[in-house]
């Protein structure tokens, strides 16, 4: 196959960096509200019927939404194998906690309705809470740690080693900055979940969701701003030393890397990226306003915009770094030295170009079929086909 050589390796790497962002944002926009709804469940639904309304707003779609997460994992494996190898083993116990929470969630959705008794159902309600809140928090904590650099280094064989004892390392993840980003992530997805409930539910459930959502939305904005300030003054950045080779072999050790004063230098080099944090603030602020005013469709769209802005601001600020190392800067993974081979990136791009539009089309069709509010009458009237 000679075809792939017509697409520049460096360009393919950038495309796959963008696609990685698309997948993570796709996950946050779709499964994000499922997680938010799960975490809100015990607070917005007081009676069993109310909780069933809440669950059934996401009942038919959470399964498809979750595939964004699975696909994210698969795409990192296929397009960024060093990132997959280093990060998942480095964040080992945190990953285990995420997996456990995400395993609990599908089971809770499906099994909660299969028995009538109260203890059974309230147990699964808390499982849904854990399944929503824990991953949302940990994903944010992970982002906070990536921004600070992760304590790993690569041997000449490219085996990744980690510093420190494991439990120490796990609690090391929970440093103040990372906890702040964790809270921002959780608050953001809670707001997103509230915006979804405001659209799909009605009455007291929607009312409570709007009340909680406007508070968490405010927390998101404040926390995001604080993290920005912290990043400007309290956290070192990274930069590639010397000439940047965009189409060299994927061996991180071939790139010389140094620490810099701050990540935010990126904003003077590429001022246009400021659009991302601006969209983040704007989207969240308008989502809060929408929740207060009781607007439905527009609120969800603003919340999506806010999440899009916030997540892309992290990626754009760090570019070309993907996973910097805090103990051996040279081991840091960048867009230019930790991708798959030229051929694999090309093939995966072709497959994505074919299937991603199809996925978006049939997902949109499913949402269209399910359009409309979930009401108490609709869940009590049909006990067989709903949760």
């Amino acid at each position, binding site marked *: 196959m000679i075809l792939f050589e017509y697409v520049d390796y460096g360009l393919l790497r950038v495309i796959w960096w963008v696609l990685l962002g698309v997948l993570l944002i796709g996950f946050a926009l779709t499964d994000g509200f499922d997680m938010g709804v799960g975490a809100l469940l015990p607070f917005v639904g007081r009676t069993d019927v109310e909780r069933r309304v809440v669950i059934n707003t996401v009942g038919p779609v959470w*399964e*498809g939404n979750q595939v964004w997460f699975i696909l994210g994992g698969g795409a990192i494996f296929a397009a960024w194998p060093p990132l997959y190898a280093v990060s998942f083993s480095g964040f*080992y116990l945190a*990953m285990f906690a995420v997996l456990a929470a995400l395993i609990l969630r599908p089971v809770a959705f499906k099994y909660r309705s299969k028995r009538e008794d109260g203890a059974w159902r309230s147990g699964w309600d808390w499982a849904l809470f854990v399944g929503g809140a824990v991953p949302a928090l940990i994903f944010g904590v992970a982002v906070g740690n990536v921004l600070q650099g992760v304590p790993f280094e690569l041997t000449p064989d490219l085996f990744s080693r980690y510093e420190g004892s494991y439990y120490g390392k796990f609690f090391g993840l929970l440093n103040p900055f990372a906890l702040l980003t964790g809270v921002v992530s959780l608050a953001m997805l809670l707001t997103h979940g509230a915006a979804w409930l405001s659209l799909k539910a009605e009455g007291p459930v929607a009312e409570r969701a709007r009340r909680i959502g406007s508070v968490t939305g405010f927390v998101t904005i404040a926390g995001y701003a604080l993290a920005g300030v912290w990043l400007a003054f309290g956290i070192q950045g990274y930069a590639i030393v010397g000439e940047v080779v965009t189409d060299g072999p994927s061996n991180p050790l071939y790139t010389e890397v140094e620490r810099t004063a701050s990540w935010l230098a990126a904003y003077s080099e590429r001022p246009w990226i400021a659009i991302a944090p601006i969209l983040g603030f704007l989207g969240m602020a308008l989502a809060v306003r929408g929740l207060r005013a009781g607007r439905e469709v527009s609120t969800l769209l603003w919340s999506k915009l806010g999440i899009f802005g916030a997540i892309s601001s992290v990626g754009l600020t760090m570019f070309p770094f993907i996973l910097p190392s805090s103990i051996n800067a040279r081991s840091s993974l960048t867009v230019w030295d930790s991708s798959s081979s030229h051929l694999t990136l090309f093939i995966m791009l072709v497959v994505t170009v074919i*299937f991603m539009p199809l996925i978006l089309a*049939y997902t949109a069709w499913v949402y269209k079929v399910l359009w409309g509010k979930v009401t108490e009458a609709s869940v009590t009237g049909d006990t*067989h086909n709903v949760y």
Partner: protein
Amino acid sequence: MELDIVELSRLQFAMTAMYHFLFVPLTLGLSVLVAIMETVYVMTGRPIWRQMTKFWGALFGINFVLGVATGITMEFQFGMNWSYYSHYVGDIFGAPLAIEGLMAFFLEATFVGLFFFGWDKLSRRAHLTVTWLVAIGSNFSALWILIANGWMQNPVGAAFNPDTMRMEMTSFFDVLFNEVAQAKFVHTVSAGYVTAAVFVLGVSAWYLLNDRHTRLARRSITVAASFGLAATLSVVVLGDESGYSASHTQKMKLAAIEGMWETHSAPAPFTAIGFPDKEARETHYAIEIPLVMGLIGTRSLTEEIPGINDLVDEARRRIESGIVAYDALMTIRENRDATPAAVRETFEANSNNLGFAFLLLRYMDDPREATAEDIARAADDTIPGVAPLFWAFRIMVGLGFAFIAVMAYFFWRSSFCQQSYPRWALRLAVLIIPAPWIAAELGWFVAEFGRQPWTVDGVLPTALSVSHLSVQDLMLTLAGFVTFYTVLFIIEMGLMLKYIRKGPFQDVEETEAWEARHEHRLRTHDGQGPFADPEYAS
């Protein structure tokens, strides 16, 4: 017992994968069976077929969700526990996993929600389309996973790149049309169909024994037995295809399964029963069937199948060549572009055996320091556990033939004996419900345990594939997964049994009324077909 990182990682992978595969085969098969039932419903308009679709669909749902939940772990644990493996072969192995998500899992998961929630929101045909898309998605999922797994068994279309210290893809088509992957795909999917057929047959037989839901049960048996007969034949034929492809791609695995220590002059006999002894390198009390092994393995009477001892000798030669490759690799790594061309050539000539040099890393840090004894010891390591493979394989094959007999019998009774089934046969059908799961798990055991000591055959040893973790980490997550999965499994079984006991509970009155009217019509309208009245012909 002291377990190290490698053993704990293997144990964890085996545990999570085998748990996952408790749910997958039923998903694969039941999705298709349910789609077939719904097709009959849409074609005939008889509510009983919709009731069957919904009933088996509800059981499908209870099972499906645990397949999804345990599948999440599968996608991420390569990075968590098999970090060096992920780095070393991610360029090839990651692609089918990602394509599985794009092409198959998205389809399946997006539409499965509509399968359950869409009965009142979609037209009959639209709902049927949704059901088929779920079934197609599930089956395509298996295709891509087995392409990934097939590559671990027979790593084609890839080459080692000294600059990146990993295997990189050279031909996507070779990876895609890997003969091992194709044979394994059809074999595995057929095994899923057998599982679902035995499940539907067994549950229906239990209803007939208790004289409950007989209309649903009889029809379900007819569907299950015809589908199951085709599937059991396919699973055995494609198992044979796997054996044939193993004879030239994974000779050691095949020899171990056969307990065949010495190369036999062609055509080799098949050892039906025997007691393989790794210490003595002999299979005691072997009962041999002449010719059969040669025919299965080579489909000829003249080709030889090498025995374990000869394969160990070959491994020794490959280790020696691998050391040469390793030495050249170290020079290349030091000098990069300044490497003399002769060294590059030496490396290219021996790079196929680089993985064999890695076998020595268990005993030393630098394979170049290996003595003849070290090399002999590493070559012996290429023999997998012969006795477990020998027995697991025979139990699996025995069960496969038993399924053919059961399905053929029920197919015959259903087609030519007015769907009357003797009670002993019904009891047997209930009893064998767990058997396909045993066969499927043993099949995976043979495939993966037989691949040892490699994660990727001949390329990367298992001992080298792990992550930099501590024993405590692995103990914690292993205990976590075991506990967690076991609790979920018990809950799942509880719900399955509850819903089987409960029987069909949707559209009950409508179906009963329709059937009663229909039977009344059959008795009163002499000479007219059941669909003579346009009211029921829709």
